């Protein structure tokens, strides 16, 4: 193979592939990327077997061919070159890639293309289109609540595509974040429910402007934005029945000013226990008291004015849960609905227009 392209063009693609290629070194080939040069374009593929990405760009192509090379080394080489530099990549079926840029020359060992795992071909038929910007802010609202642990089905967010809406849901077993957006997809026969891996969502967040096109087959999800396509294996398990745990009629309602509340929670959390971040809330008429203590450091108290008319309730929460959610919503007021100190509480930004969020938090016994 032989092609020439400017540093900037290939560097962008290599950079984005850094997030995809496997870093833990379980299978050495997964640290590689696949370069496939056809007569019209150069296609680069990276995968960790769960999430793959294919991207392509046009270049001055002299000879076609396919090899795999270390994703990290190639990225580092491209990055080290001077700006605007034209770079020539050449390999003569001897598994030695020669990279020439001005006076710089590199020879990098390649592996045969047959060793590289097959990444599914994406197909786009359903025409499900989501604007990148909105999808990104939806992901932001669920991303923090995705569990990092062994319960596999939770290691991603549930995506529900209905004819008139798109929903994302995530949970770590102690809290649940839900966001939905109205869309018009009249062509969808019935609803699609799939779990999207955390890594995939993180990669989608890196997409810049434009629209995302989504489709799926039996095993994979496809997200295309411009010349880049993510191919993500479907997480084969059942997402918990989230509708059942969203409280429907919590009787005690509290209206909070988001800024005031989050600032108070942040202050009090400074002296909460390192790991659990437990903060005790005491609800009184039009007042919310916060208290935390850590036998090793000390204690903190705060109180803020709120709109509340219900009975006195004492309830413990993980302060981080509030901080995570309230940092990504934008409304001025937040509605907080409670039942008692052992039941789930619900947070809802008041007066959201485009997106509709709900956040369910379980209390903690302090």
């Amino acid at each position, binding site marked *: 193979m032989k092609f020439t392209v400017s540093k900037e063009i290939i560097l962008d693609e290599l950079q984005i592939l850094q997030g995809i290629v496997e870093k833990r070194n379980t299978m050495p080939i997964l640290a590689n990327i696949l370069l496939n040069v056809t007569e019209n374009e150069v296609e680069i593929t990276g995968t960790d077997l769960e999430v793959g990405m294919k991207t392509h760009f046009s270049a001055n192509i002299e000879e076609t061919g396919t090899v795999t090379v270390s994703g990290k080394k190639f990225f580092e080489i491209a990055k080290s070159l001077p700006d605007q530099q034209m770079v020539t990549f050449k390999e003569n079926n001897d598994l030695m890639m020669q990279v020439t840029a001005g006076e710089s020359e590199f020879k990098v060992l390649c592996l045969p293309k047959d060793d590289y795992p097959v990444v599914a071909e994406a197909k786009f038929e359903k025409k499900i289109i989501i604007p990148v910007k909105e999808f990104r802010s939806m992901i932001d609202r669920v991303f923090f609540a995705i569990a990092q642990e062994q319960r596999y089905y939770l290691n991603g967010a549930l995506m529900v595509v209905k004819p008139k809406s798109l929903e994302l849901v995530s949970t770590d077993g*102690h809290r649940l974040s839900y966001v939905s957006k109205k869309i018009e997809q009249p062509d969808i026969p019935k609803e699609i429910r799939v779990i999207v891996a955390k890594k995939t969502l993180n990669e989608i967040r890196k997409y810049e402007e434009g629209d995302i096109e989504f489709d799926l087959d039996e095993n994979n999800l496809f997200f295309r934005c411009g010349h880049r396509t993510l191919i993500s294996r479907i997480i084969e398990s059942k997402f918990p029945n989230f509708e059942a745990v969203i409280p429907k009629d919590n009787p005690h309602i509290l209206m909070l000013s988001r800024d005031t509340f989050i600032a108070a929670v942040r202050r009090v959390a400074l002296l909460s226990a390192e790991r*659990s971040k437990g903060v005790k809330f005491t609800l009184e008429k039009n007042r919310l008291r916060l208290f935390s203590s850590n036998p090793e450091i000390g204690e903190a108290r705060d109180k803020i004015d709120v709109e509340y008319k219900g009975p006195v309730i004492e309830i413990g929460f993980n302060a981080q849960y509030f901080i995570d959610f309230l940092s990504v919503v934008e409304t001025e007021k937040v509605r907080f609905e409670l039942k008692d100190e052992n039941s*789930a509480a619900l947070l809802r930004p008041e007066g959201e227009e485009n997106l509709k969020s709900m956040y*369910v938090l379980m209390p*903690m016994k302090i």
Partner: protein
Amino acid sequence: MSNRPPFSSPSTRERRRRAAAPAFGPAEFDGTPAAARSSGARRLALQGISPSPDPAAAEAKVSGPSFRPRLRRFIVHVDIDAFFAAVEVLLNPALKGKPLIVGGLPHERGVASTCSYEARRYGVHSGMALRTAFKLCPQGVFVRGNYQVYQSFSEKFFDVLRRYTPDVEATSIDEAYLDFTRCRRLYASFPAVARDLKAQVERETGLSVSVGVAPNKILAKLATGRAKPAGYFEIEPGREEEFLRDVEIDRLPGIGPKTQVVMRMLNIKKIGDLWGMSESALHSIFGLGGDEIYLQSRGLDNRSLVTEADPKSVSRETTFLQDLWDSRLLLAHVAYLCDRLTLALREGRYYAHVIEVKVRYADFRTEVRRRLLVVPRREMTDVYRIAQELFLGLWGGSRLPLRLVGVKASDLTRVRPLSLFEPYSDRQERLGTAVDQVREKFGFGSVLTIREKMLDEVYPKDRDRGFVLKTASLTR
């Protein structure tokens, strides 16, 4: 006043910086008063104790009255003399005055865990293979020992210590550090309290103990070494250097046989001989260990005590009387250990985020399997269910019998986040509390699961402690 000593686990470099800084916390002995007293030592203090690049600061520190007894820590190190052997003598006075070796019979595999002072005269020491001990001391009395009994003596020992101060670090079954600094308002005189403590321990346990008193752990331990056996030694303020000078080099912890060989080649026998060596010289010879030696040889140590206030983990394990293969009996052991473990968790008001099961096969291969829990647990039913799965996952299908099982709870927390997908229930907690109450009154063995009851056939049962396993809860 802070509830905890100000430093938890500073790095070596950090420790050095703090130990040398003139304005350190309410804790440190920095060696300067002694240095200020003798001009010979002054040079030493300048080049060694004070790595400060600013000579003026170092000078001011050496000549000024920087050492204030009020800020001195008061650390007591207590060590039971020849613990297991002493207990055996207490139980069988006929053994008194005889060379006694506890650990096993002469022909058995294994090592001497303790030997009496009489046996030590023959060159026998703990850790020595029983066979070797027998060769050195054929007239010695060898006994297998009874850990259950030692454990109960040990508990009594620690009970007495904890009456004096809550800041007790149990370093082993028969050895502890006490920090009286926080109790300074309670006692008129620390040395008097330390002497009283020694007398009280001896009165209540019938065992003789050695006590070392100093401003930090390393010096206290070295002082105990001087006090042994059955003595009391206090390193008085300002006499640290005088004390250290003549201490044998191998008394320093961390100086093993290999280091000793090198020391001998360098003609270093006493701690005082080390003072001529610069920090970098020690570092280049002994690496990181050299940094440690440098600090220790100057009596610098501001490690705080590791008290039981916040354990990292709780574990219970046991070896079997003979290797086991019967899965029902093995699970009975797992259940019993879980029961003891969850009791300890409830006592400490802890929930565990991680449950771990350990098995050791007949060929001594050890395997561990752990599970991370989304909702932390501490009740018997939950912990046993997890431990059982882990155990069967580990051992299931194995062709080898086992010689040990253990369960461990770690990543402990005092709060319990509730789960979204499990309905809230405090049934398990209430059950645990109820069982604890019954046991409080009628003994641990009064409530057991059917699975645990299988151990009836194997082990004797003690009213208060439940089954008397081979090595019951030797791990603290």
